[in-house]
């Protein structure tokens, strides 16, 4: 789950991490008020959207007086950035920057640990740095049983600074950011850039955080910050019913049990010349209610011309699956052709039960996919 920069900065401040003074505004007038309250000449106006690259899109501007501020605020509010409409901007004191750095904590799959990533190349796209100059990125694998002791925080800080006073400042920031990361079950906590001001202070002038969806149950305050897009709402509503759903835009709706098989199914559709409308994993069991709910979800997509149901009968046997499907489709009226592929335990019995129904029954994934693609033509 993503949150906005201004929300991340609030959390940062609660952990004693130094951030620039700023306030979030929803209108130009609010922005002017915030400007007056900040009581500084120069401010930065930043679009608050759940996507990167807002700078390149024109969503970040400096203003040196009220006229300029009004102009930028008006331009950024309502702006579209990668499909996100800007409804909030952050007005922050423009900090007098000496140098910029990159700091983040992320989960590393390979070491199965949290890692601290640091670079002197701050303010830039870190993936670009990773590609072009990987030696400029320093990584520290964190042992969860000890976290970031002083020595390790110092060791990390020495990668960015030489002056011991700056090292001590940075070390405390790294320790607090780690505490925040762990205590909030984050999957990313990024400061880009972390800046050294001309007055010798180190502070975060941007803040990015994403959180582990599986852990939101124990972080109700963070969960309350969730702002799903329309598409995400559909996915979340599917999730609440026990499905995984992702909209893809093609014309063959898929219903599959298991995530891997669901991915393989949409890949096969493409391979056979069709276009998958979605990814839909209905999970382990195949009770009729679930099938009905899933079909409703598929049929709400007006692009769908054919539905491909691909079920591997494992613990739940194919004959049980077939009777579940039959029961479900007694309650669903649809003109859309349905291809069913049923394999696994008791597959013969299952397929026999589907004989004489309007379903197109197939034995293999290849056969089923071919049929589904043909039916779209």
């Amino acid at each position, binding site marked *: 789950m993503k949150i906005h920069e201004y929300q991340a900065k609030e959390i940062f401040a609660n952990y004693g991490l130094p951030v620039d003074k700023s306030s979030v505004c929803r209108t130009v007038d609010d922005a002017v008020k915030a400007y007056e309250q900040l009581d500084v000449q120069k401010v930065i106006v930043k679009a608050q959207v759940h996507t990167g690259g807002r700078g390149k899109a024109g969503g970040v501007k400096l203003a040196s007086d009220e006229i300029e501020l009004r102009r930028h605020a008006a331009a950024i509010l309502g702006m579209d950035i990668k499909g996100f409409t800007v409804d909030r901007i952050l007005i922050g004191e423009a900090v007098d920057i000496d140098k910029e750095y990159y700091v983040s904590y992320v*989960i590393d*799959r*390979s070491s*199965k*640990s*949290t890692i601290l990533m640091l670079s002197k190349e701050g303010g830039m796209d870190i*993936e670009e740095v990773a590609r072009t100059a990987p030696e400029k990125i320093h990584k520290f694998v964190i*042992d*969860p*049983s000890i976290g970031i002791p002083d020595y390790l925080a110092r060791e990390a800080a020495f990668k960015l600074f030489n002056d011991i006073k700056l090292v001590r400042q940075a070390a405390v920031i790294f320790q607090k950011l780690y505490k925040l990361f*762990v205590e909030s*079950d984050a*999957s990313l906590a990024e400061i880009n850039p972390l800046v050294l001001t001309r007055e010798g202070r180190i502070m975060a002038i941007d803040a990015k955080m994403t959180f*582990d*969806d*599986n*852990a939101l*149950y*124990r972080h109700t305050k963070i969960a309350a910050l969730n702002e799903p897009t329309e598409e995400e709402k559909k996915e979340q509503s599917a999730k609440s019913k026990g499905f*995984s759903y*992702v909209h*893809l835009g093609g014309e063959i709706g898929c219903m*599959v*049990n*298991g*995530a*891997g*098989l*669901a*991915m*393989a199914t*949409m*890949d*096969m*559709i*493409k*391979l056979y010349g069709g276009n*998958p409308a979605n*990814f839909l*994993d209905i999970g382990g069991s195949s009770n009729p209610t679930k099938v009905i709910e899933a079909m409703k979800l598929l049929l709400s997509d007006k692009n769908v011309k054919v539905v491909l149901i691909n079920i*591997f*009968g*494992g*613990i739940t046997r194919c004959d049980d699956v077939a009777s579940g499907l039959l029961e479900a489709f007694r309650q669903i009226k649809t003109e859309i052709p349905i291809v069913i592929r049923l*394999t*696994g*335990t008791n597959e013969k019995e299952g397929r026999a039960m589907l004989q004489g129904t309007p379903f197109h029954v197939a034995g*293999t*994934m*290849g056969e089923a996919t071919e049929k589904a693609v043909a039916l779209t033509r």
Partner: protein
Amino acid sequence: MSILIDKKSRLVVQGITGRDGGFHASKMKAYGTNIVGGTSPGKAGALVDNIPVFNTVRDAVRETEADTSVIFVPAPFAKDAMMEAADAGIRLIVCITEGVPTLDVVEAYSYIRRKGARLIGPNCPGLISPGRSMVGIMPTMIFREGSTGVISRSGTLTYEVVYNLTEHGMGQSTAVGVGGDPVVGLYYKELLEMFENDPETDSIALIGEIGGDAEERAAAYIRDHITKPVAVFIAGQQAPPGKQMGHAGAIISSGSGTAAEKIAAFEAVGVPVAREPSQIPALLKGRR
């Protein structure tokens, strides 16, 4: 031989009095898995399908010499269950539970490794050495004894591949579902190594998917260390970036972890990649 589990494995089922724990305990027992006990705090002395229940894993280990455990507790308690197993001396811990917070796994894994134990999962279907032992929720009926090792990040897709293998007369030595989360226990490298060293395994099917770079690392490892034939299938070529495809770990983030990259990595080291799951048997047969 097989890897990780066989007839001698002594299994304890953590959360045996729960709905899933009880159901799958019976399934495993019916298959012949040597289940020696289960745990459920406060229910010591009870029996579930004639399996004795203990309050703690330590009690179960002391009384039954269990060396393997399988976990069916709800996600908020999975970390504690994994650590309990490790602390009690369990050597192989298989966590079926889905939706475990990633940092819980990070912490539990670190502790398990310190105790010298092994973890499979979480969010996995477990593993099976056909004809010997099944630990998890695998549909046993589709497996046959044989000599192909299977490693997979997925559940039903594994069954799809195994089904095809069995149909083609290729039984399995051991099949392991490593789990679909970003951070899980044993992974390609360790399992490839075990299969390489297992005299009863003569070929390996590896089923990967989008997200992370474990497949790329596996390709490099196969190039350097694996002499047995390997065939691969990668799911998720059509997955859009930034979207989680069911499994928490199946996500293309910052443009990396794509199926194309993974397929290219295997092909670059001469490992054939199937276009469809059904091609795996032929790809392996051609090279055995």
